[in-house]
């Protein structure tokens, strides 16, 4: 059972109270974008075997969307953070890197940064 702490109400919400919203931090490309950019926005996704950044909605609770960092193989939850951001908090990235030094995820947490 996956349990995530909602960053808005502080509740430890279990999976059945939540709604999964797919990958976090997608950048939207609109009408003026190139075909490649639009294709990337629509279809190209990370599919990591490891730590993933995801969107979740506390659907049966406060109804707010938030972000979570979760390992797709062990289900270890590294943390959750509010949705009003374009990147994961530095502390969270540091926490992930500490346990998974090789972790990379799009432009965040690259091995060289």
């Amino acid at each position, binding site marked *: 059972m996956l349990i995530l702490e909602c960053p808005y109400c502080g509740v430890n919400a279990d999976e059945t109270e939540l709604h999964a919203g797919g990958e976090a931090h997608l950048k939207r490309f609109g009408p003026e974008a190139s075909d490649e950019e639009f294709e990337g926005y629509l279809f190209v996704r990370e599919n990591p075997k490891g730590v993933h950044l995801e969107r979740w909605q506390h659907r049966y609770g*406060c109804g707010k969307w938030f972000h979570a960092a979760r390992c797709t193989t062990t289900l270890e939850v590294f943390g959750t953070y509010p949705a009003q951001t374009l990147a994961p908090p530095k502390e969270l990235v540091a926490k992930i890197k500490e346990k998974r030094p090789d972790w990379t995820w799009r432009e965040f947490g690259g091995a060289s940064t």
Partner: protein
Amino acid sequence: MSDMAVITRADARGMITLRGDLGSAKMKKAVKAATDQAIPTSGQFLGNGDKGVAWMSPDELLLIVPYDGVAQAIEVLEQALVKTHFLAVDVSDARATFTVSGDGTRDVLARLCPVDLHPDSFGTGQVRRTRLAQIAAAFWMHDAGFDVVCFRSVADYAEGVLTRAATTGEKTGFFA
């Protein structure tokens, strides 16, 4: 074996959904004027079943007022919040309320909701919006047990699952 709890469908209550900036001074005055209560903190319920206020989300409160006083309370809110961005809507008839009382109330709700109901984690004056079996619901704890609120369209379902949870099986003993 006696039942763990008694489920009673409560009389209609006046309920107002109030959304807006909960941190503002105007909101504080408005809630005070309508319910005599302060703004609750996250997960808090203030007042009682006749006049109270429940924290629903970072920008939403549920105000409980007497059923006949809803129109008046909304007028009070609208006057107090004039020229701010807010929503105050009468949801009294959209909701059903149940009271759960007895010595096994925590067991009854723990069977239906994915909530840690141990006395160390959940006590009097706390409110939780969650899932009750297959439906959305909210409940808060007071001295005599729990008040459970759900949509009226699923009230029969809620009554059924609550009653079944309260009248079958044994207490777990986890909440003693």
